[in-house]
């Protein structure tokens, strides 16, 4: 009876995790973001023509807007887009699937190294309900996919190291690490380090196997390494993100001859970044930036009440993981270190592979505390964490969309659907590329419009030859003083660039509202 009850609750929890991760996927986040639409469009374009937005044939790194994207997520998204069509769901499908698989593999990994089913399940649960991971796996983020490959690579390697039998496991582990490098730029640093250190932590019986593992992985990532050396595509993108390319640091390094001074500056910058990455306030209270900064109710990457368990887990890790605990800390340290070498504040995307070791430590902390705690304390711990989880989920699904419309370029999908329905009625549809208060931001409507209106990718590939026009669509910054208003045109303008009120030649036909009910765009037709 007890076994059936446990099995039933396991199935129920797993089902609820899957359900919550998929719930309203096309509505929260409220709109496809800048990076998401680039990925979605490229996947759609590759699926139709084998060429990306910029007309490159099956590229290894995808030219995007101001950066280059790693290729794997885009290639994997081709199939969901073919099956589910041009929707938010299909763009985010790979990420959500990778997120769910990461949870499962992390659970299996912990079971493998601790030998405790309960700890494995608890770790999976902690990761499943970790706000940072939940948030990241509902967005088309390449780093989420990379995190999955990293965890899988480690799991497969450990499986092989334990039995030393089936070489397929070692080969698959190398493949997983290589795929992680194809999934996200930062993994080009972390994955080789993990591949190098794994055999040192868990030696293989046969030295040849170790060399095979290194050589095989290296061979698979060779094209990326060549690309990195060429400083084109991914290479240039990766290089601009490193701390030594922050303008102030770059200038300082260029102007000083003393190696000591150069080293001290770089070391202190990395150390400062590293400190920011392990800041408990950031990890548990403010890191997620789900809501505006001045709001008191912020969220971290993990639920705030799980903070004491991280500390307990860090202290008692050895008791549960034995010889594996050193590797766990090294994995975390390497992940944090590679992330600390990049510019800017700690970034959830760059830290996704680190969420798994953090979750393992938190789960160990839970186990350790609950082992010695009385039943009322156990109930209190579960209740408090459960309460925060419900609070987070309600915040995520109810308030987050209201706060975040502009950040996610809300409105372009609605514009696309409307203009598609009236496309035949007008000679030209002119769209202002700016949005936000005082036209602060410049969007990429040239991707949103064709994606949601199923435009043939060849038209976008030839866009530079057509002066940036896409069929009847013309995207530009509208200056009403100079604009020659001709009949049979449709104007889509942001709220901060409305035409003059006395202008009688324009008639308002539609207003697009943000989720917080503020007007974002207005659509006018010429009379």
């Amino acid at each position, binding site marked *: 009876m007890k076994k059936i009850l446990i099995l039933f609750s396991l199935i129920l929890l797993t089902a609820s995790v899957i359900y919550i991760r998929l719930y309203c996927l096309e509505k929260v986040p409220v709109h496809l973001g800048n990076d998401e639409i680039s990925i979605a469009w490229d996947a759609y374009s590759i699926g139709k023509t084998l060429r990306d937005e910029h007309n490159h044939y099956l590229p290894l790194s995808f030219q995007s807007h101001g950066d280059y994207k790693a290729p794997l997520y885009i290639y994997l998204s081709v199939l969901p887009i073919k099956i589910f069509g041009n929707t938010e769901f299909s763009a985010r499908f790979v990420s959500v699937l990778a997120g769910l698989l990461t949870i499962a593999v992390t659970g299996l990994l912990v079971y493998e190294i601790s030998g405790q089913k309960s700890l494995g399940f608890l770790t999976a649960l902690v990761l499943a309900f970790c706000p940072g991971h939940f948030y990241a796996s509902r967005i088309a983020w390449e780093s989420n996919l990379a995190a999955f490959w990293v965890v899988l690579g480690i799991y497969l390697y450990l499986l092989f190291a334990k039995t030393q039998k089936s070489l397929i496991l070692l080969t698959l582990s190398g493949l997983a690490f290589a795929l992680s490098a194809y999934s996200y730029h930062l993994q080009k640093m972390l994955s080789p380090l993990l591949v190098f250190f794994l055999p040192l932590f868990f030696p293989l019986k046969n030295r040849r196997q170790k060399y095979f593992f290194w050589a095989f992985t290296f061979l698979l990532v060779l094209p990326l390494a060549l690309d990195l050396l060429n400083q084109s595509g991914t290479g240039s993108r990766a290089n601009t993100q490193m701390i030594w390319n922050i303008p102030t640091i770059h200038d300082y390094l260029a102007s000083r001859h003393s190696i*000591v*001074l150069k080293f001290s*500056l770089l*070391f202190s910058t990395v150390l*400062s970044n590293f400190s920011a990455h392990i*800041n*408990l306030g950031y990890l548990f*209270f*403010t890191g997620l930036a789900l809501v505006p900064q001045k*709001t008191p109710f912020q969220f971290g990457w993990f639920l705030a009440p799980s903070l004491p368990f991280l500390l307990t887990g860090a202290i008692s890790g050895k008791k549960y993981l034995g010889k594996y605990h050193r590797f766990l800390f090294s994995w975390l340290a390497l992940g944090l270190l590679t992330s600390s070498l990049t510019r800017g504040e700690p970034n959830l995307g760059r830290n996704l592979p680190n969420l798994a070791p953090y979750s393992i430590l938190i789960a160990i902390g839970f186990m350790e505390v609950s082992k010695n705690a009385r039943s009322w304390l156990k109930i209190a711990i579960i209740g408090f964490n459960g309460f925060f989880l419900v609070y987070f989920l309600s915040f995520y699904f109810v308030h987050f969309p209201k706060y975040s419309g502009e950040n996610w370029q809300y409105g372009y999908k609605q514009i696309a659907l409307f203009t598609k329905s009236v496309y035949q009625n007008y000679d030209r549809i002119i769209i202002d590329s700016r949005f936000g208060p005082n036209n602060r931001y410049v969007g990429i409507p040239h991707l949103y419009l064709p994606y949601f209106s199923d435009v043939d990718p060849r038209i976008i590939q030839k866009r530079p030859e057509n002066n940036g026009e896409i069929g009847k669509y013309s995207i530009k910054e509208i200056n009403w003083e100079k604009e020659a208003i001709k009949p049979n045109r449709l104007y889509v303008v942001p709220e901060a660039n409305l035409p003059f009120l006395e202008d009688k030649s324009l008639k308002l036909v539609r207003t697009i509202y943000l989720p917080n009910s503020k007007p974002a765009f207005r659509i006018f037709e010429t009379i």
Partner: protein
Amino acid sequence: MKKKFNFYFLKILFFSALVCLSSNLIKHNPPLIIIANTGLFLAYSCLFKGVIKPLTSLAILVFLALMPIFAYNYLYFPCYLAEAVFLILVSILIRSAKKPLLYLFLFLLVIFAYLYFNLFANHLLRWPAKLETESLIYPQHQYQLEIDRQQKESLSLPYQLRFLIFNEKTAYGYVFLSNVFSFLSLENLYRTVLLGNVFLVLLGFYHLKKLEPVLRSLAIITFFICLLVVGLIKTPDSMRPFSSARGMLLLLALNGFNQKINWKIYLSVLGLSLLVNIA
């Protein structure tokens, strides 16, 4: 033997004072501040010298004198007087451990004095006891607006529950905890005591049990008062909140050093820490 030790200790104090003076000079502190900082370091060293075993390890004081916190300028001289009063009270308290009533009275007095001194050092109090509300997390108009907004808009929660979750107490409690844990960062610690000493301080905290009961209680209470004040400040400075606890940081570092620290590793990390501070 005792005479020999005293001479050795005096030598250590002399070199520590030189190091402390130099680090104050490098920071371009005014002469009065340099004297005050060095004097306080020496006083704390004398007070806590008993913690170090064996006594030959007292040489660590020379390196601890490099802690940036002992070159900190409060920018308000009465703070030094307040710290001196606190230090005198602590030294009396340590000596009165065998007289329970006096001990209890003095203990409460020390806690009160430390709280007062801490608020003073963090610019939350003006002489004699005027609270600077502008520096506090409470009240903030923006927070109140957000609380009202959540109470109205959280339609997914039952009506009564909304007021239970979104109210001033939960909001400020959350901000308080967020402030405290954001402040307890590696960077704030190494900017205060140098990277090489962070490990000593943490180790000293972990082995608090090995300290005498008086010192242990003092270390814990000052730590919590320090965090209490940090949580209340709107934008905590990286070094100021620790400045009032510098005596206790020295005590923890000495306690940490007692736990079999390898001199070579310590000195190499200390060298690296100095490089960080140069940058």
